[in-house]
């Protein structure tokens, strides 16, 4: 579904990603871990098409298409979803109105009819249950004044509504309380199918107890320096990153 080959990207001339290779197949869950500043969010942003980042090398194909060639909105319409590490506030625009605009533009792109108000609301009701989100929150301005946890929950609610094929969750677990973590993870799990894939960016093994990954990758200095199965996450939890950092940094100096 997603193939990333030798991806290099920089921002304002500073290289951040330095040769990422990653293959994600339908039905899989990949976890990306790594120390602060290693480039996890950058990778997510580049995949979603944020224009500040310049791709200097490499290629990304998504469902056989050249992803890097598509405008951000078209990537979304093709089924790429990014749950933001820091969701943005849009004053005066309710979540409901926002989502309806989004869904109908995605549907239009796919040659589907616009959802009428009734169908939309029915769908909303159903998905609201999935992440146990309160109706009141959705009638408020998008993310404005939402607590950290509420913002994250709302991201997953939007994911449920948009039914993406590739979801990238950037630290969705940070800021969630213990119950919310369980609820949101359950939601993500229920949305999983053999046709879609998920990339979860996280710092904590705890999340991976709920959303069990098929693969775990460690990102360091803009490269994936180690890949493994879910046991790798446990090992990281126990030992931290130093042993990996040391190995890589000494390699680099040799």
């Amino acid at each position, binding site marked *: 579904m997603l193939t990333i080959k030798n991806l290099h990207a920089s921002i304002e001339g500073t290289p951040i990603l330095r040769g990422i290779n990653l293959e994600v197949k339908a039905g899989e869950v990949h976890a990306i871990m790594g120390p602060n500043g290693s480039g996890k969010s950058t990778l997510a942003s580049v995949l979603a098409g944020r224009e500040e980042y310049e791709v200097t090398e490499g290629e990304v194909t998504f469902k056989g298409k050249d992803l890097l060639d598509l405008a951000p909105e078209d990537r*979304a319409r093709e089924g790429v979803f990014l749950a933001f590490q820091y969701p943005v506030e849009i004053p005066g625009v309710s979540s409901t109105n926002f989502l309806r*605009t*989004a869904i109908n533009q995605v549907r239009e792109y796919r040659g589907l009819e616009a959802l009428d108000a009734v169908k939309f609301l029915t769908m909303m009701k159903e998905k609201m249950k999935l992440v146990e989100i309160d109706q009141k929150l959705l009638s408020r301005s998008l993310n404005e004044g939402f607590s950290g946890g509420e913002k994250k929950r709302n991201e997953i609610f939007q994911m449920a509504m948009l039914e993406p094929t590739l979801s990238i969750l950037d630290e969705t677990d940070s800021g969630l309380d213990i119950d919310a973590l369980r609820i949101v993870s359950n939601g993500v799990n229920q949305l999983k199918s053999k046709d879609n894939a998920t990339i979860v960016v996280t710092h904590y093994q705890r999340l991976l107890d709920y959303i069990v990954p098929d693969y775990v990758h460690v990102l360091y200095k803009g490269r994936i320096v180690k890949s493994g199965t879910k046991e790798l996450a446990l090992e990281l939890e126990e030992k931290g990153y130093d042993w990996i950092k040391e190995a890589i940094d000494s390699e680099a100096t040799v």
Partner: protein
Amino acid sequence: MSKDNQILEELTSKEYEHGWSVNFEADEAPIGLNEEIIRWISAKKEEPEWLLEWRLKAFKTWQSMTEPTWANVTYPKIDLQSLRYYSAPKQNNKPKSLDEVDPELLQIYERLGINLNEQKKLQGIAVDAVLDSVSVATTFKGTLSKLGIVFCSFSEAVKEHPELVKKYLGSVVPMTDNYYAALNSAVFSDGSFCYIPKGVRCPMELSTYFRINAANTGQFERTLIVAEDEAYVSYLEGCTAPQRDENQLHAAVVEIYAAKNAEVKYSTVQNWFPGDKNGKGGIYNFVTKRGICAGDHSKISWTQVETGSAVTWKYPSCILKGDHSIGEFYSVAVTNNYQQADTGTKMIHIGKNTKSRIVSKGISAGKSQNSYRGQVQVMKRADNARNFSQCDSLLMGDRCGAHTFPYIDINNSSAKVEHEATTSKIGEDQLFYCNQRGISTEDAVALIVNGYAKEVLNQLPMEFAVEAQKLLALTLEGSVG
């Protein structure tokens, strides 16, 4: 080049959609401005002597005045002698009902999406259509007159209700008020008159639609709204003009009088031709709008959505004379390309326990300049006056300007005046967030801008709010940043 500028360069703004004109025979005054022309207009309209005198007096006053220069706008000097001060579509006999109105005139309004045929019209809005200098038709007159409501063209009011016109004309905006108000008083052609008798709640929205059609013709309409004790009315004003290379002058006067416990809501969606994207052409809109809350517990509320005109100079104001009276001003002013707007309000607190609320949302794009100018004045005996002002500016791109000029003048220590102001830019973050959910940049801008202006748009009657939202999006099309 930053992304903002790049997008700005790439996208060109959508052309103004009402930029057509129709050729039909017109009754026109000779070009120029002098006493003779004023007599000519007055005679044409078969006006009583007192009104002619009033006009001539205004003209004399105007001659001694000079054009104001304090507004934050620049434009070449207007040659007032090269304009025509009266142009009316030729209709052989004055139509008595809609059936007699020239179908070609009705068609002009059809094209603007305004249907003057009563049975087909949306329920709940009565329309007075003003083309160039005269009122073409007024709908729903019968229904309204049963309630004692007068809603007709200004000229008709002069004939049918001279005592009312005489009593209120110039009572809120004196002819000496300012340069453009004096000019208007001398040469005003037509406009709407609306009178709601004591205790009557007007059951439908009253609406006037102004259209400039003829070239080189100034439009000087005069609107007068009177709400007697306990009366209520919601009044709407819309406007368009054809696209022309030269600038056209529009200098209207609106007066509102609210008696005890009366409430008047006045909403405008201003969509005059703004000039093309290089700043050529467009309407100069120099308008004086003022209301007086004359009676205790009365309320006047101005809501305006300003999207058009090359230059706008407009400050709908409230004189809060009655105790416990309330004045409100809700404004969205959008400027794009080379448009300039200097707009705001004046709230003059005279009575005790008077309250005013100002919500101004400026949106600037392109190379435009957008200024808010507001004055809050609390007089000596206005105990416990309250004012709240919120002035926000939204910038799109980095070649436009937003300016705020609040003037506060307090002469009573019990007054409470609050002023809040913010300036923001449409964020890349917000746009990207929308894009990431599948929303195009153009629609993202519309969404964000409408969200930003929501508090004001919410004040508009439903049909107008939808129109206004579309207009905002249209005005800003291609100005992302």
